[in-house]
């Protein structure tokens, strides 16, 4: 009847050693894997830096002031002034467009919509994040840009006295503005998803306290939900910013490349660090590729800084569960 030996404490010495060894081994394997992450981040910085050095040496301080990009010419003339400008400006415009829509729809879905509807629409918004950027780029060229032209013309007519919304030649199209609209569409689901997580963590009691005072639903949002989630929303916006700064292909496709520092965002032309790498890489020689790596290092540094700060903000507001959602 006894199918197994009665386990005796004293007799399991050998097995105990084996168990302990297996446990330690497994723990060390997982620890090693964790360290791989640390090593990877460091390695990205180090390898980019090593390959960027020749380009930095060649360009000197003009790397940060020069607008043109002719690294393979002799003498070489290249710098990231125009690229960095375009990267930052397009990302800011994208944020201005995306944040109200993203936060507003997140509020609607968590606070106002019936639970079922909120889930279904939230799910659809997540799908927006799943569309590959090359598809957004293609769609941007052939669908969005032609349909944006009248909007751009209208903007010029009504608020064209502000240089930002004026096209001096009267032509519109593959502009920084169009690229920013595509960017906005791409970062919208990220900001919306994180905002939804954050709103969901507002204690029910806070909301009910406001409602019990006779607050309307909007007042409850303003009194209980928004103050509680301010930090988290800042974090969400910054994560969206990080994504916008690094977006490559959609911008490379939509934006007509031009190297200029110019606030007339409705005029065609402009460029970003990431898009420039994508469009120039295949045609570049060794020196050109080194220069592209150098620009990539700058991009890496910027996005790293933005992400570290954003995560810091999100962590500090005690909403650790909210980050990292697609």
């Amino acid at each position, binding site marked *: *009847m*006894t*199918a*197994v030996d*009665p*386990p*005796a*404490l*004293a007799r*399991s*010495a050998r*097995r*105990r050693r084996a*168990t*302990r060894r297996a446990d330690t081994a497994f723990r060390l394997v997982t620890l090693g894997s964790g360290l791989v992450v640390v090593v990877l981040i460091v390695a990205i910085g180090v390898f980019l830096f090593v390959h960027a050095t020749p380009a930095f040496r060649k360009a000197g301080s003009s790397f940060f002031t020069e607008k043109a990009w002719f690294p393979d010419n002799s003498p070489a003339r290249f710098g990231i002034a125009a690229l960095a400008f375009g990267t930052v400006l397009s990302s800011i415009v994208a944020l201005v467009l995306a944040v109200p829509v993203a936060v507003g729809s997140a509020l609607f879905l968590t606070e106002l919509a019936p639970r079922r509807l909120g889930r279904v629409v939230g799910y659809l918004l997540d799908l927006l994040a799943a569309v590959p950027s090359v598809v957004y780029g293609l769609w941007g060229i052939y669908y969005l840009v032609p349909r944006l032209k009248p909007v751009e013309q209208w903007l010029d007519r009504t608020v064209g006295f502000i240089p930002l919304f004026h096209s001096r030649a009267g032509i519109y199209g593959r502009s920084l503005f169009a690229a920013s609209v595509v960017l906005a569409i791409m970062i919208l689901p990220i900001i919306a998803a994180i905002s939804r997580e954050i709103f969901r963590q507002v204690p029910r009691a806070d909301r009910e306290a406001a409602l019990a005072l006779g607050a309307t639903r909007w007042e409850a949002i303003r009194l209980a939900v928004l103050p509680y989630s301010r930090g988290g929303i800042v974090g969400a916006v910054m994560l969206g910013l990080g994504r916008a700064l690094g977006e490559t292909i959609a911008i490379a496709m939509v934006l007509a490349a031009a190297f200029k520092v110019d606030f007339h965002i409705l005029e065609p032309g402009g460029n970003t660090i990431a898009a420039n790498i994508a469009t120039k890489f295949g045609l570049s020689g060794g020196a050109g590729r080194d220069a592209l790596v150098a620009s990539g290092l700058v991009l890496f540094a910027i996005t790293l800084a933005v992400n570290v700060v954003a995560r810091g903000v999100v962590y500090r507001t005690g909403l650790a569960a909210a980050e990292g959602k697609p």
Partner: protein
Amino acid sequence: MAKRIEAGGVTAWFGSFKAIDDIGLTIEPKQITALIGPSGCGKSTFIRTLNRMHEVVPGARMEGKVLLDGEDIYGPEFSATDVRRTIGMVFQRPNPFPTMSIRDNVAAGLRLNGVRRKAELDDAVERSLRLAALWDEVSHRLGRAAASLSGGQQQRLCIARAIAVEPDVLLMDEPCSALDPVSTLTIEDLMSDLKDQYTIVVVTHNMQQAARVSDVTAFFTIAGADEPGRLVEVGATSKIFTKPDDERTEAYITGRFG
């Protein structure tokens, strides 16, 4: 198979909080020992030091000795794993493995400890389920998910899982607190059946249950918040519930506090 537990000077901490202080208790084999007392008196903490489950909680540590038939379970020659294979445990809430079938749940301990032969496993499964008084209810659906059982059945399944590895001692930490009265009675009957073969320790907050099933009762209490739990008195259940020596025990069993 059933073995004697002698605990002496058992003191346990969670971080800097001392949960129990200097508990000494001898638990006899083939008897049911009930640990009773008000919430937070450390009875659950104490029972978890008996099979080294206490140290699973991060920051938890303990001092003192626990001997199983004279062998120190905290001695350097034993690992926590060895101890837990020898001293089984049933938890407050039924916790069958949700990804496993009924059969696999019962066989889990054996299989994870290296038993591979199917016949051997099948034998153990049937024997344990019969012992846990669950065989008749589930023998025709051993392949079904454990989650398909009722709460009481799940708890009996957990008992079957614990006894399948043929432990010497069975620790039960409020095994009925999540169950309805009918299931509770079934489990109590089962405990009485099992005591011929095992040393059984049961933590309960239900005094009727302690009175119904146990042979020996130990009463724990705390002097106040932030104070550690202490053992007040231990004795034959009939005596504790009729003529306790300590007035705190009397106050508790007559329902004046706790």
